């Protein structure tokens, strides 16, 4: 039998034994008979010495080819068995993913916080910083510096909660040596005063925060609520600047179709003063129940910072002018989600909190 014939037979026998293997184990058991030194093809290799030099190259090549074919057949068979095994294993791991028992729910930011952060973001985008200050304040910062001396009738607009601090109620830094009362701030305007006292103009800042009024809680009032106020003091700041800034804010916060307008009003700390209305966000100006068919809803108050207020903070009102504005945050949150009762925001019912 020629060497080539022997090689062909050995190859065929090897491939046949591979094909006959039933599983991975018997296939692996074949490895030494197929590839070892004692394998048929291996023993043929040893015959190479007996082949004459002229044929040696041809025989060597045939041997290599045969070995390659066997390896290939073995690899294919192995892969086939492995994939079957893996499939069986994977099948055994099958899950109904809807059987999940435990879940880590995401937490929630309070609606007021979300609204406050959105407002801050809009104003930061417009070049403002965010200022904060104490919630308990002196008469001076909450009222007097804001052009509301003790006898000012407009003080009744702010039903104020005062603190009982014993002896300290009457001491303190009431400017000009006056006795001073400590109260819970009725607006975030005292923060404006503190900013003006400490930082020279130009000033572009907003003051968000918690404020307090002596109001019995009902669907639209809470004794504790939140406001954001804005303050700009710079050269040649005008009422037209106030109007433009509020327009830009309104478009950025509420969307392009919502506009703002100013109406004359009165606040002791601003002159001229204005109410700040926006297009009704419910009907977009067509008139509905929310806006009492006017197409507008009142958002807040604003105006040019009163020269007395600038003066109280040591700012020369001839050199600098400014505007301020302010509005409630809670009501914005209510409006956005159609919440009917302000008190719902403060029961801390998880069924409420987790909706946002």
């Amino acid at each position: 039998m020629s060497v080539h014939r022997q090689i062909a037979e050995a190859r065929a026998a090897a491939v046949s034994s591979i094909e006959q293997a039933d599983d991975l184990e018997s296939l692996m058991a074949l490895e030494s008979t197929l590839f070892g030194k004692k394998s048929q093809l291996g023993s043929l290799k040893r015959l190479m010495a007996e082949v004459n030099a002229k044929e040696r190259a041809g025989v060597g090549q045939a041997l290599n080819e045969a070995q390659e074919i066997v390896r290939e057949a073995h690899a294919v068979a192995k892969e086939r068995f492995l994939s079957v095994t893996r499939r069986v294993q994977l099948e055994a791991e099958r899950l109904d993913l809807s059987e999940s028992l435990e879940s880590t729910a995401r937490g929630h930011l309070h609606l007021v916080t979300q609204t406050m952060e959105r407002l801050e973001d809009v104003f930061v985008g417009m070049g403002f910083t965010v200022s904060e200050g104490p919630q308990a304040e002196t008469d001076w910062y909450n009222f007097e510096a804001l052009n509301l001396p003790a006898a000012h009738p407009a003080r009744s607009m702010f039903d104020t909660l005062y603190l009982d601090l014993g002896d300290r109620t009457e001491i303190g830094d009431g400017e000009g040596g006056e006795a001073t009362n400590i109260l819970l701030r009725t607006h975030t305007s005292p923060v404006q005063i503190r900013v003006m006292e400490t930082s020279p103009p130009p000033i572009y800042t907003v003051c968000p925060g918690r404020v307090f009024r002596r109001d019995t809680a009902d669907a639209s009032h809470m004794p504790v609520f939140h406001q954001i106020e804005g303050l700009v003091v710079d050269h040649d700041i005008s009422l037209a600047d106030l109007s433009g800034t509020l327009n830009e804010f309104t478009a950025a916060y509420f969307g392009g179709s919502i506009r703002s307008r100013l109406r004359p009003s009165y606040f002791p700390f601003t002159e001229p003063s204005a109410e700040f209305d926006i297009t009704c966000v419910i009907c977009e100006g067509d008139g509905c129940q929310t806006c009492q068919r006017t197409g507008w809803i009142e958002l807040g108050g604003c105006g040019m910072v009163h020269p007395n207020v600038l003066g109280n903070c040591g700012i020369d009102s001839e050199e600098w002018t400014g505007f301020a504005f302010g509005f409630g945050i809670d009501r914005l949150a209510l409006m956005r989600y159609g919440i009917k009762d302000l008190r719902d925001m403060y029961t801390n019912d998880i069924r409420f909190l987790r909706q946002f």
Partner: protein
Amino acid sequence: MKVLLSWLREFAPIDGDPQELADHLSDLGMAVEEMRLLDPLDGVVVAKVVDLRRHPEADRIQLVDVEIDDEQLQVCCGAFNMAIGDLIPFATIGTVMPNGMEISQRTMRGEISNGMCCSASELGLGSDRDGIMILPNDLHLGAPLMDQLGLEGDVLWDLEINPNRPDAMSVAGVARDLAARLGLPFAIPKWATAQTDDSGNELATIQIQDGSLCPRFCARVIRGVTVGDSPLWMQMRLTLLGMRPINSVVDVSNYVMLELGTPNHTYDLSLVPRGHIGVRRAQEGETIVTLDNQERELAPGDGLIVDHADQPIGIAGVMGGASTEISSSTDAVLLELASWEPESIARTSQRLGIRSEASARFERGTDWDINSLAVERFCYLLNEVSPGGVEVVGQVIDAEGILPDRISVPVRTSRISTLLGRAFGADEIRSLLEPIGFVVEQTDDVNVQSVTVPSFRPDTETETDVAEEIARHYGYGKLGSTVPRSPEAGHLTPQQKLRRVVRQVMVGAGVAEAMPNPFIAPDEIAKASLQIDDPIRLLNPLAVEESVLRPSLLPGLLTAMSYNYSHRNRGVGLFETGVVFEISADDAPLPAEHEHLAVLLGGRDAFAAISLMETLASALHLQFELSNSDDLPGIHPTRGARISVGRLEVGVVGEVDPGVLERYEIDERCGWLDIRLDLITDAAVAAGDVSYQQVSSYPSSDVDLAFLVNDGVQASTIEDTLRKAAGEELQGLALFDVFRGDQLEGSSRSLAFSLRLQAADRTLTDEEVGVVRQRCIDAVESLHPATLR
């Protein structure tokens, strides 16, 4: 302030679309809160009652025959207040009433009813629903009611008037402003009443003892007064403007107040001894019985009307005294038309709790200049409405206190233009201000106008105030709209950014943000086992349950948790970032305010809180150190620890005291983390950016060490020792197993730590790892009551 179009028209020829007029009013700063086009009441006519009969089958209704023109109709009516011959409003068949009901022919208990006799309330003309409205006798039978009342096509606006607009608290003042906007002429008629007697001036004397209290007091004696009903047209106007008709004298008084903004008062002259009226401030301890028969205690500074013997007979501008009250037997009346110091009226009316239409006007400041004209108006009207007329005696008695100066304000056109953001010229300023009563004169300086303020605008004192008037009448909306730009970019402070990071960590950990009330009840301090003796109290709380400023976030979150448990929502995690208050440690008057982050984890133990704390530490790149502590207020006595950053104590962590949970009716353990947000964000900012460590490319080795450690020693202490002993090759250190069991001696437990060692510049040899391992063992065993297991 409500105004009626027909009434405004008595001062200026105002006309046009009611909605457009409303828009102008709002744009002038008198926001229209409600606009009502008076119902034309088509089909409601004047009818005469010609017969009244019992209904044969019913007691509560009667049969009424009414006459309209020549027609006579029977109706059934539930009211019994009319008499034969009375004129009444009658809704004919087919009339649609203001409430939408259509009148049809009906049969009531067998009797036909051909229409309806109407009450004022049913017609939307008042609140009186008790009886049928009785009309004056001079109306035309069968004529449309609204036409006969002069209210056809009339419009009622309810305006919100700002405190700086005393002038707009009157029909005339609103008319002046609106006429100016519309470019219409405005005039207050010169009412005058023929004097019947010039001799009686000595009947009354006015003596102002305190001129700052009362700048001007006008008075007049009117004789022959009979107190009766005022005419329907007057009653209608008063009713529509929100006042209840009382009698002719009171109605005229209110009418003049609404029309001219001048509250006034009438005395029965015969009850004012010698007709002498004095004006002074009250002294300590004085009292007076007011019109409502209440004895009032007066405070020093209250304005008083006193008689010749210096005894109080009225509280100035707030309420008259009972002793001089008008009655049906009054013949001679002394009319008071005075102005008062606004602050005094505000104080007195607030203290006594007497707020009225009059005090609302005096508080804003009334126009002292119009007082004598208002006297004329009063006399004119009282003469008109009294069937026999009245006898107006002598001249107006005019006493002056300290009259406010007429203010002239120098106004720079350049300043106005800067403030308003639009260039205004002198002529334009004049044309905007003069129609509302300001006098504008050019000064020698071409840039400066001298603007004299009218007496009815006491609020206007400065150039800026004048700027507002210019802007208001020009129109805020027409000024243009520009956006100034900050020279610096907008930004949050590092602390503000970190506060947001902290909140997001909480959200990521599945915790929901709550906003509990910062006011708590006094007993909540004990309920939450907070050891605080002197929490800050409110001086004027709304309720005792909300009378203390929270010294901790614990009570609020427990209340919120308790609410959720009581609604069968268990296992809730809540957090809050908020301020707590305490008396300042130094002498500062303001309380100390510290911002905290607190987390309450329902149904979770202390380790859940620790795990959250670790996440937070990692987010802020801070190292929190723990020390177990048995004495933390409100915290589980054996499951609590203090947290510190370096040597700074920043908070507490653990579980809530079971006794506290019981009092809040929470029947599961609750993990608790309370940390000073202000301190940790400051610490994180101070720490600066993290310092980058290049990741080693050499293999690492792990060493596991288990020690038997006495329970008295914190695991974290062992951890610290290991960390120090292991040295710079330590890459990771974790406690991975804690075991307690009977086979372990005494009060010890096994703590198993895993250490990962790695060098930056080489592969550690087995010997090197062995050296570190031994160093760690030696350190722990020598420094603590601990042995290697």
